[in-house]
């Protein structure tokens, strides 16, 4: 087990190094920030001084070396646009995204597991077809469109909820629900499939013969074995949550990491892009380790592999 986790961590670390190199050089390709931050008629010497102060006049490899050395001291640099340390900016924005993703993921998991498990109790029954179609629809909804339509209906027409901006719990309802819809649909599909397989296995028949109550068979006996494929797809969806969060944060005006990244890309704020990518990648890295541990917890056979 420990060698398995070490192996996985090594692989993730290699991916992360590759990603850092990729992002560093890609963001440098967007052009010189001095064109964007200084007025067009800036004299050449001021322009040169600006480049020198920010280290843009060094050769790329030297810039990369500085970047890597600073990284080991947890110094991610300073934002060009906001003139604040990148680490502060990223760590300010991160909790919002994390809470958004965690709330949406919890909602998606609970709804998907209950709906999928109930549907699997009678395959091809009325409830099963209903859940199947609904989950397919959920998986097909573009989240930016769903966000706009739900703002229109619940905030503009019905005036039940605020349109955008961070704030009290009511501000979180629409973003969380909209973000949860697609993962929920995809996970429900997997739950249904895995539960149908689990419910037709021999040990479930045994439990039934012993007279165990149906609810306990579905949610205790079968669900535990169906959990492995569910965890796999939920892990994928949790990683993909960042994709959705970018769009959702833009539409609902949430000060999260997605919006920070999007704005930094537009303003060629290299240090923030790099910092955001590293922190996001680290979060995904941690998530993958948690998923691996969950596998081992649910399926003791993995320990011996």
């Amino acid at each position, binding site marked *: 087990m420990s060698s398995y986790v070490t192996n996985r961590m090594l*692989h*993730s670390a*290699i*991916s*992360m190094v*590759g*990603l850092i190199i*990729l*992002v560093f050089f*890609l*963001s440098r*390709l*967007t052009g010189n920030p001095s064109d964007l931050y200084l007025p067009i008629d800036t004299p050449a010497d001021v322009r040169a001084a600006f480049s020198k102060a920010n280290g843009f006049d060094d050769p790329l490899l030297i810039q990369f070396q500085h970047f890597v050395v600073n990284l080991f001291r947890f110094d991610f640099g300073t934002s060009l646009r906001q003139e604040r340390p990148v680490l502060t900016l990223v760590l300010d924005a991160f909790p919002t995204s994390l809470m958004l993703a965690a709330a949406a993921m919890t909602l998606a998991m609970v709804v998907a597991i209950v709906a999928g498990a109930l549907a699997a109790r009678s*395959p*091809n029954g009325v409830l099963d077809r209903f859940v199947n*179609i609904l989950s*397919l*629809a959920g*998986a*097909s*909804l*573009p*989240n*930016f*469109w*769903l966000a*706009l*339509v739900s*703002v*229109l209906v619940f905030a*503009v027409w019905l005036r039940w909820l605020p349109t955008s901006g961070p704030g009290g719990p009511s501000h979180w309802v629409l973003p969380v629900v909209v973000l949860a819809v697609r993962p929920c649909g995809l996970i429900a599909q997997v739950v249904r499939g895995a539960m149908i397989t689990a419910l037709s296995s021999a040990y479930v028949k045994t439990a039934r013969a012993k007279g165990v109550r149906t609810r306990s068979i579905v949610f205790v006996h079968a669900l535990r074995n169906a959990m492995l494929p569910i965890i796999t797809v939920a892990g994928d969806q949790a*990683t*993909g949550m*960042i*994709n959705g969060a*970018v*769009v959702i944060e*833009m*539409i609902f005006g949430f000060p999260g990491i*997605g919006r920070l*990244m*999007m704005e930094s*890309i*537009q303003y060629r704020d290299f240090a923030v*892009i790099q910092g955001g*990518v590293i922190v*996001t*990648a680290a979060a*995904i*890295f941690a998530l993958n380790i948690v998923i691996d541990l969950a596998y081992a917890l649910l399926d003791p056979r993995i320990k011996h592999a």
Partner: protein
Amino acid sequence: MTMTAPPIVSSAEPSSLRVSLGLLWRDKFACVAVLFLLAVAFAAIFGPWLLGASATKINLMARNAPPLSMHLGWHYILGADALGRSILLRVIVGAQNTMMLAGCAVVISLLVGSILGFIAGFRNDWTSSLVLRLADILMSFPSLLLAMIVLYVLSPGLTNVILVLAITRIPIYLRTTRAEVLEIRERTFVTAARVMGASPWRIVWRHIRPTVTPTLVTIATLEFAFVMLSESSLSFLGLGIQAPEFTWGAMVAQGQSYLGTAWWVAFWPGLAITLTAMSLNLLANWVRIASDPVQRWRLESRKRTNG
């Protein structure tokens, strides 16, 4: 469904196409999905050619005209945008760019991914681990964020959007193909072919490829829906294909500013995205069941209840 033929099964084997169509008819949802996709394909192929000029015609009399403004003409049935262009016509014409971007990206990633997957699975040496590590890097980061960064660097255009979407989706095909190839190459019929002196190319092309193809086709159908949604998100964020060319995602983005006053500008193109993605998902679901002998009886048994 009227049955003219006698209910006795004829001794002649019906063609596989007819069997498939019969199975499709028995799943009404899949049937509707296929019809809808055919309509979208028709709009994508002939739309710009038939209606391209009228879809870009500006009519300031019809600015933000609400749906059912029939007095302005039949094509204003879904309303008009801020420049008075018919939304119905723009949705029809926009189908081409939307389908083409997603289609090209899926074909490229399918080809590259499966070829790399065949190599990685069949050789299973250092090339395999190199390819897998590269796939890991791509998989370890949210694809939309990566696409955003790359498109900002490369400037969003038709080719770049297709390439970025294709590259971020390669790992899916790569991993699936590799896993299947690893399993199939150990089976008896492959060993038999090897013993009979078949070359590696022949083994891959004539023996392994046909077994892997159904899985890849199912994944490609699902991926088409996924890529279309990704492209729409990129277009929505302004990083997709640029004006005057447009896709459904770009139309939603354009309608965002008029949401309070003219909801229909953003609503219809989004509905088109949803329905197309859902049809693709339904179709993929049906293909998976119909091509799986274990589950196929479910479709066949519906004959008695429906017929």
